[in-house]
């Protein structure tokens, strides 16, 4: 039984200004830090492509199933995001260790020749993000105090 109520002048003004606001909507990325290396580039894909991330795509278990190179890609290109954090956790579960002095990831390649409570010395694999590949480092001293 509530009949329509005529809009007052202030409501008309609000409608007009709301329409102006509607022309300049914020983008989701406006609420995120600048992504230097991998800014969002929404791209319309065929509707039969999955349009949503798979379920549980934001869990360590999901990231653990990714290949090492993929994890390093996520780690180095999605800096400062939850994806980088999850990739780091998954890499550690794949027995990589992040050395904060060199700010690089290392993985023991064989039983180190020297081990004491300060460091271990031996052959390691590290991920070279300049050449984008895993490389071996002989006789490397791995200092625990820099282990993250």
């Amino acid at each position, binding site marked *: 039984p509530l009949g329509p109520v005529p809009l007052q002048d202030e409501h008309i003004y609000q409608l007009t200004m709301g329409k102006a606001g509607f022309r300049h909507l914020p983008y989701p*990325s406006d609420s995120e830090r600048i992504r230097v290396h991998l800014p969002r580039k929404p791209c319309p894909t065929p509707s039969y492509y999955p349009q949503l991330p798979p379920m549980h795509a934001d869990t360590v278990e999901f990231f653990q199933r990714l290949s090492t190179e993929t994890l390093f890609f996520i780690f180095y290109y999605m800096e400062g*995001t*939850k994806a980088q954090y999850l990739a780091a956790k998954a890499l550690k579960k794949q027995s990589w260790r992040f050395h904060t002095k060199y700010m690089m990831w290392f993985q023991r390649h064989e039983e180190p020749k020297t081990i004491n409570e300060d460091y271990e010395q031996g052959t390691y694999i590290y991920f070279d993000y300049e050449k984008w590949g895993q490389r071996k480092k002989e006789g490397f001293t791995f200092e625990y105090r820099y282990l993250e």
Partner: protein
Amino acid sequence: PGIDLTTLGLNLNSPENLYSTFQSPWVDIPCRPQDIDFHVPSEYLTN
């Protein structure tokens, strides 16, 4: 009759909280991990 609220892009049966991946009132997909700013150790900021 209103709107079918299951078509607004929110997984209403999710056991997890929705707000932590809520992207925007204008978008009907949740945030992806790479969309969420995270306080990672400063050494991770290798770039």
